[in-house]
């Protein structure tokens, strides 16, 4: 047995090294100067290389860099509000699709769900031009509102898809029982079904936030200068000489919220109160 | 086909408490056994030790004279039916039944008659060409059983609550078909269940388990007529056995002042022991032909259809009496008799005789 656990821990150690290596590499690089980067792989500050804050300064208006605060704020606002709206609308739509039968001609519930998902089958480039023209028509190009609308169109299908699946797993008798206990259908949804679907909502929210946060393509095609989002701003750092230190710092800064989300979601899901409450 | 011998086998899942306490059990060749008990009593642990899904922490498992304690499941030639049907949904019933034989390299000419034979046995002949996905839950469970039976090298058949996912109303039919099939093949069968009726219907011998131990082992009739303690007496039969506190008076036992038992062995009992007699509700008789009997007050009668269950009160104790409804018992006084040959004596909760 002890041998087995030693092997287990060894395996975990190796894997952690695998996962942590790129992050460590980015962290050290962000504190290096051009000299430090080109003089081979070194990891220990002051011993391997002379640490410098130049990379980090360049993100906040320092020499040869950008001001990352505005794009960062834009990304937070756009991704956050688009995700929030998608989750609210998606949850409501999914509940309807899970609980009530709709029928228009040959179109039934399963077809409607498919229509939602089919939005994501097309490659982004196909959507880019219509989106561009629509936003132009609405005079919303290069605005946060325009981006929020586009992101809702992209994120809503994900939310609906995940939540339909989740609601289907919540026994229908639970809503029925709530109604017999005196709840209207909407109250049954709010007081009984929703509290039992928090883990589903959490997963859907996580997916929406990750997709939204990481999107580069639409942020790039639908904005110019006023409403730059974080991924676009980072790419614009690249010039004739690649500033590895600035890129590393910005990579770390942009991945940070995702790590926070992952930790929060993991914590919430592992609390038994959310997951597996329903047999 | 083989005997299964658990030699001083015990198992703990890593803690000091044994899920299955050390025990020596022999399952004879060709007989049907039921492991009966509530969840957590150790019955599934015992089954997994036999099948090899679990290596016991103590003792040896001998199947057909061979020590298989550390042998993986696949090599033990044991067929197993689980709570949930395990079948290939995408294949037909025929292909499902033929699969274990194909894996053993049988040629087609040999497979066809063997599959037909097993399908006939289980009443699946008409379903052979159908896709397994289309079967009802009970038919799927029969196919799982068939996949185990079709091999001719099976030494034992293990069933772990195979009726769990079956609609309560289909259970009778499935139970009958499994029973008939296992009776015909004469495998050694070990059947795990928490349902008394299933165990008593199925098995030549029942092992009643509780808290990791076999409490009583015997034929269904023995368990019913001479349960070894109050637990078994209550668990087997419906309603359970009546247990009545009695006092000793020389060689006699008095219940509420009425003599109910007389035997010289009673006189030899150590003083201070807690004495009880047990009698099944159906064995309580009504006094007639000049016998005085024990006066009882009827508190209520439950009509079950073919039988009535009478709630009677005698002094400070209650007694259930089962009677055929045609006897038409009315509320009011009643005189009952506890036939001596049906009365069991329990000393400190354990059957004496």
């Amino acid at each position, binding site marked *: 047995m002890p041998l087995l656990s030693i092997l287990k821990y060894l395996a975990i150690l190796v894997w952690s090294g695998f996962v942590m290596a790129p992050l460590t590499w980015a962290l050290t690089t962000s504190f290096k100067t051009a000299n430090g980067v080109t003089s081979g792989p070194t990891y220990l500050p002051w011993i391997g290389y002379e640490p410098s804050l130049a990379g980090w300064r360049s993100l906040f208006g320092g020499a040869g860099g950008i001001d990352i605060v505005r794009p960062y704020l834009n990304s937070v606002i756009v991704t956050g509000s688009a995700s929030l709206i998608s989750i609210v609308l998606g949850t409501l739509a999914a509940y309807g699709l899970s609980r009530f039968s709709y029928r228009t001609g040959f179109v039934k519930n399963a077809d409607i769900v498919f229509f939602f998902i089919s939005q994501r089958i097309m490659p982004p480039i196909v959507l880019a031009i219509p989106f561009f023209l629509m936003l132009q028509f609405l005079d919303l190009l290069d605005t946060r509102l325009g981006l929020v609308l586009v992101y809702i169109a992209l994120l809503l299908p994900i939310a609906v898809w995940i939540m339909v699946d989740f609601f289907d797993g919540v026994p229908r008798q639970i809503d029925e*029982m709530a109604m017999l206990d005196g709840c209207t259908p909407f109250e049954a949804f709010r007081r009984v079904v929703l509290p*039992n679907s928090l883990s589903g909502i959490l997963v859907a929210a996580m997916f929406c936030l990750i997709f939204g946060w990481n999107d580069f393509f639409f942020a790039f095609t639908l904005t110019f200068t006023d409403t730059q989002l974080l991924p676009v701003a980072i790419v614009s750092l690249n010039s004739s000489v690649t500033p590895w230190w600035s890129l590393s710092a910005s990579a770390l800064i942009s991945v940070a919220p995702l790590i926070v989300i992952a930790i929060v979601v993991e914590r919430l899901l592992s609390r038994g109160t959310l997951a597996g409450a329903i047999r | 086909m083989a005997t299964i011998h658990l030699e001083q086998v015990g198992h703990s899942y890593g803690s000091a408490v044994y899920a299955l306490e050390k025990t020596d059990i022999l399952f004879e060749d060709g007989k049907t056994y039921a492991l009966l008990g509530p969840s957590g009593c150790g019955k599934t642990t015992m089954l997994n030790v036999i099948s090899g899904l679990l290596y016991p922490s103590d003792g040896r498992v001998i199947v057909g004279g061979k020590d298989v304690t550390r042998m993986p499941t696949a090599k033990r030639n044991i067929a197993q039916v689980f709570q949930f049907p395990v079948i290939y949904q995408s294949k037909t019933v025929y292909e499902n039944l033929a699969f274990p034989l194909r894996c053993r390299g049988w040629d087609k000419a040999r497979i066809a008659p063997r599959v037909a034979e097993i399908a006939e046995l289980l009443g699946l002949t008409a379903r052979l060409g159908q896709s397994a996905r289309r079967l009802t839950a009970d038919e799927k469970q029969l196919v799982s059983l068939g996949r185990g039976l079709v091999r001719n090298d099976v030494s034992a058949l293990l069933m772990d609550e195979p009726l769990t996912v079956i609609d309560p109303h289909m259970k*009778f039919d499935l*139970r009958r078909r499994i029973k008939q099939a296992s009776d015909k093949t004469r495998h050694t069968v070990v059947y795990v269940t928490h349902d*008394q*009726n299933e165990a008593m219907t199925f098995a030549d011998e029942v092992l009643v388990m509780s808290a990791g131990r076999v409490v009583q082992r015997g034929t269904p009739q023995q368990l019913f007529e001479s349960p070894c303690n109050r637990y078994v007496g209550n668990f087997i039969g*419906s*309603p359970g056995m009546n247990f009545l506190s009695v006092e000793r008076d020389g060689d006699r036992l008095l219940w509420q002042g009425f003599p109910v038992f007389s035997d010289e062995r009673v006189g030899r009992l150590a003083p201070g022991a807690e004495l009880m007699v047990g009698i099944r*509700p159906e064995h309580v008789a009504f006094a007639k032909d000049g016998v005085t009997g024990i006066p009882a007050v009827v508190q209520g009668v439950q009509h079950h259809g073919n039988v009535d269950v009478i709630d009677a009160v005698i002094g400070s104790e209650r007694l259930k009496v089962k009677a055929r409804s045609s006897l038409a018992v009315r509320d009011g006084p009643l005189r009952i008799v506890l036939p001596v040959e049906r009365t069991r004596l329990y000393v400190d909760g354990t059957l004496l005789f």
Partner: protein
Amino acid sequence: MSLVLNSVSLSRGGEIHLDDVSLRFDRGGLTTVLGRTLSGKTTLLRAIAGLQETDRGTLTRDGEPFGTLPAWKRDVAMVYQQFINYPHLSVFENVAFPLRKRKVAESEVGHRVRSVLDVVGLAAFGERKPSQLSGGQQQRVALARALVRKAGVLLLDEPLVNLDYKLREQLREEFRGLLASQADATVIYNTTEPAEAMMLGDRLVVMHEGRVLQAGVPTAVFDRPASALVARIVTDPPMTIVAGTLDGGRVLFEGGLALDAPGLLAAMPPGRYRFGIRANEIEPVDGGGIAGRVTFGEVSGSETFLHVETMLGEAVVQLEGVHRVEPGRQIGLSFAPERLFVFAAQGEGALLHAPGHGEG
């Protein structure tokens, strides 16, 4: 003062679930509805609860129209076959839910919930989540939630069917006591088990394929089933029913057996009939009797049911106690002709004669 269904019909996707059902459920009594799977029992309850719309017919309660109200205004409580509770709420909050929804004062909520939990034997489990309870306990929570409201109509859809055998027996015994606080309610209890229907019901309704076959006092239905079909449904193990003719004071069964008809039977007009005999009226005899071969022996509680192949077809024999009877064993059977039921040969077999209690 009652719940009345008048010619209620309901079908979905071409399948008939309720077929012209007219029933009256009185306040303060327990009615058991007995029927096999898919007999329409569950649909009946769902229609009363307002969970399923009816196609035709009316529902009234105390003379007021009831069928047009939405489910949440019907004052109906229901317990399902599956153990359905609110997973996110503690046992206490589960039971308190319908009271809180009705804005009952907090002090009264606490009092009522605690007293109901006490009745169902879960006083110590108020803080647990339903998922931390055993199946039997979960079903008690569901029952407590239905009881706490003192609803006008209490519907129970095979509430014990998914419980272990011994637990079922225990809860069945406790049931009347559990309902003691609901003296004013109309209680409807669905079951597939004749014994359960018999012992719990003040009244018994027998359903089959969406229709009501018979309704009445349980012992009356058991003693005088309206038809051969009802007789089979209300008897467990099923009544053995054999076709035959009555002629000149003799019963001639299909399969060849002939018996002298007892007094009342002999007085019936000659002709073709169906004859029924209950399993507890058939006895195995040593030597002689109707020759039979045991095909299957089944233990049920404290009885053994033998399925026996005879010249009359399959007969079911009920033996008291637990016995081991090997399949294939030859046995002789006998029964008293006085205990025969006589049903019409046509259709569902209307009852023509039932043995009385005094006979035989």
